[in-house]
Every structure is written in structure tokens, then in C-alpha cells.
């Protein structure tokens, strides 16, 4: 039988089941905690640190923290907002994000987070790193300029035998995520489309498509990211 656990998030009593992660319990109770690397329903990685909150006074990533009885959670404070914005700003400064020339613009989760928190400029200097674009795959383009190394593609995109089609190359500051050429040659359209959708940014794009929806009609043009989660009226009844 599922064991019900009571916790408190930002002063609101929330209920979840034993073994559930904090980020999921918050969402099910109508509280949005920003995430980037997390994929709902998959084992968390805690790679981007964006979902950091205070749990019983300590900073923890809510995607990797299972709930426990009586947990006191704080998701909003000047300090947490500042930390979170800092992570988003680092990602913009660290890569080459030319949003006006990016097909993902308007549908990009990184950009949407920056919009939600009204970030007008990163506090860090832009690095303009030297990065390549892999254009040799039949269905996909891998743009290293925009990859935020969230590993969503590695975790979610596998061939029939369960092999990851995306993998890390190099280490340290040169680390990148590339597509296996042999496996990508055999990829079908559905899996390629899934890869495009799983990438939160414009680092995996479909070939031969370019811009599709006009400004004003894209996912985050009018609706902030997380709005669906935080506007849930009734917390899930357990």
C-alpha cells in the first residue's frame, strides 16, 4: 500500500507518496519549482541544479530529494531567486546563444526561464566559446553552441536495443554531447522528432525545417514557463 507523507512547502501543507521526489510532489500540489534537466517520469540526474530549494534549512536539488514526513521546504526567497538566476545567466554567458537567429526561440526552456525571471543581461561576461555544428546526420543537426549539457538526450533517446544515441565526447571545459554516426544513420523520423522535443534548447534541430511558427504564436510568447503547474487550482487529492 502507498504510504502518504505530509510535508510543508512555502507554508502550504502538501501531500505525496513515500518515495516520490520533492519536485514531483510540489508540481502535483500546484507549486512550480523551475527545472531544466529533469524529465517527468524518468530517473532524475540533478545536473542543472536549477531546482535547488531549502529543505529543513539546507540547500538541496528537489529533483533528487525524496520526500520525508514533516519536511519543511522553502522554494522562494531572495537568496534562492538569486542563485537560480545565477545558474540561468551562467548558461547564457557560457555558450553562444544568439536567440534572434535560433529556430528554438519562443519554444526554448532556457529562454523561457530567463523571461519568467525577467533577466535582461547575465552578470557574467559572455565567453563566445569556439564550438562546432554537426550537420552530417541524415535527420538532425547538433548545434554545440547551444547545448547546456543537461543530458536529457542521452537519457531519453535510445535505439531498439537500448543503446544511447547521444554520448559525451571530451572532458572538462571541452566536454560536448555528440550523436553516434552509425546509430543516427539508422534513426527513424519519430525518434528524431522525439530527440528534438526532449532537448530543452535549440541544440538538437530537425534538418531542412528552419522557422515554423510566427512570433506571437510560440509556446512561451504569452505564457510563462511553469504557469500550468502553478495555476492548478486544486491540489491533487490523494
Amino acid at each position, binding site marked *: 500500500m502507498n504510504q502518504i507523507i505530509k510535508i510543508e512547502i512555502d507554508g502550504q501543507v502538501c501531500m505525496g507518496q513515500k518515495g516520490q521526489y520533492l519536485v514531483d510532489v510540489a508540481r502535483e500540489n500546484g507549486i512550480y519549482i523551475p527545472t531544466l534537466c529533469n524529465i517527468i517520469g524518468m530517473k532524475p540526474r540533478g545536473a542543472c541544479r536549477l531546482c535547488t530549494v531549502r529543505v529543513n534549512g539546507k540547500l538541496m536539488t528537489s529533483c533528487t530529494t525524496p520526500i520525508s514526513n514533516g519536511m519543511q521546504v522553502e522554494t522562494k526567497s531572495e537568496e534562492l531567486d538569486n542563485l537560480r538566476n545565477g545558474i540561468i545567466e551562467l548558461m547564457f554567458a557560457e555558450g553562444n546563444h544568439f536567440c534572434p537567429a535560433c529556430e528554438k526561440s519562443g519554444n526554448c526552456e532556457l529562454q523561457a526561464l530567463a523571461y519568467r525571471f525577467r533577466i*535582461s543581461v547575465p552578470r557574467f561576461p559572455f565567453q563566445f566559446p569556439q564550438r562546432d555544428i554537426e550537420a552530417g546526420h541524415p535527420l538532425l543537426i547538433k548545434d554545440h553552441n547551444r547545448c547546456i549539457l543537461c543530458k536529457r538526450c542521452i537519457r531519453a533517446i535510445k535505439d531498439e536495443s537500448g543503446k544511447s544515441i547521444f554520448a559525451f565526447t571530451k572532458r572538462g571545459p571541452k566536454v560536448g554531447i555528440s550523436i553516434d554516426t552509425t546509430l543516427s544513420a539508422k534513426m527513424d523520423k519519430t525518434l528524431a522528432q522525439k530527440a528534438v522535443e526532449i532537448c530543452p534548447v535549440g541544440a538538437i534541430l530537425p534538418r531542412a525545417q528552419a522557422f515554423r511558427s510566427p512570433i506571437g504564436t510560440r509556446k512561451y510568447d504569452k505564457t510563462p514557463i511553469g504557469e500550468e503547474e502553478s495555476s492548478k487550482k486544486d491540489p491533487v487529492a490523494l
Partner: protein
Amino acid sequence: MKKAVIATTSLAGCFGCHMSLLDIDAKILDLIELVEFDKSPINDLKTFTRECDIGLIEGGCCNSENVEVLKDFRKHCKILISVGECAIMGGLPALRNNIPVKECLEEAYLNGPSVAGNNEAGIIPNDDELPILLNKVYPCHDIVKIDYHLPGCPPRAGLIWEALYALLTNQKIDLPYELVKYD
């Protein structure tokens, strides 16, 4: 009330941000109740005639002249605002930041599809009068202190208006979600 004085310039930009300023439509009438323009492409004044309250900078710095103009703006304006992605992060001109300048010039004047075969003498403009290209395109805040940043490519007319109005009337600003965009 004494009118505030505004100066504007376009460095390595496309004038899209200036167009967006004009795009505030009838509010331009409200704006000229509040401000006078000094050096600006809008009135074609080429030099500063006095100290200014606000300087609006469009475009980043891609050459020596941009740097000079930007420093001159810093000297003459109490408040400097980076208007648009190019001023904020280099924008589309900064797409060249990972390509050596020599290669860029060769593509533009010798090898590009619109010039190949039409420049038999192989001339790359190099007159002393011409500003020197910088190794990279720099965001304005890499060169001088910038007080505020208005993102967008171009920033929405509403964003420019809201920000200017708040600044000129000394009010706090709560930016509406729809106005803060990077494209």
C-alpha cells in the same frame, strides 16, 4: 518642468532598435513633452551640444569608431542604456566572433557569392580613414559601464516606452511578461 535630454546612436546595429523607438506610435507625442533630443540620428545632430540625461545605445562594438562613440556617450550621458541584443551581447554581428577577421574580410570582399569574380584586383578596403575592425564584436558593457539593458531584437516598442517613461517620471517599473523577449 525642465525636459530631460536624450541622445541616441547606432553602433554595430541595423537601426531596427531606432525603428522600434519610433514604433511607439502616437506616444511619440507624449515623449516629446518629456524630452528633447541631443546628438541622435533622429535629428541628425552629429555632435553633443550639452550634457545629456539619458543615452540610448543600439548595437555593440565591432570597430574602433564604435568604441570611440560609446566612450563619448559615457562621458556626456548621466544614464546609459543598452537597447537591444546587439548592444547587450553583440547580437547577430557577433556571429563572426569565432571566425578570424581575415577570413571574414576575404569572404566579404573576395570569395562570397555576391563578390566572387567581381573584384579582380582583389582589393580589401584598407584606407586610413576607415575604422579598424576589432578582433571580436563586444557587448557595450564590456567597454563602458552600462546602467540598464532593454533586451529584444528589436526590443518591443512598449518595452522602450515603459522603461523610458518610468525613468523620466522616477517610478518603479514592473515589466509585463510579453515585453521582455530576446528576439
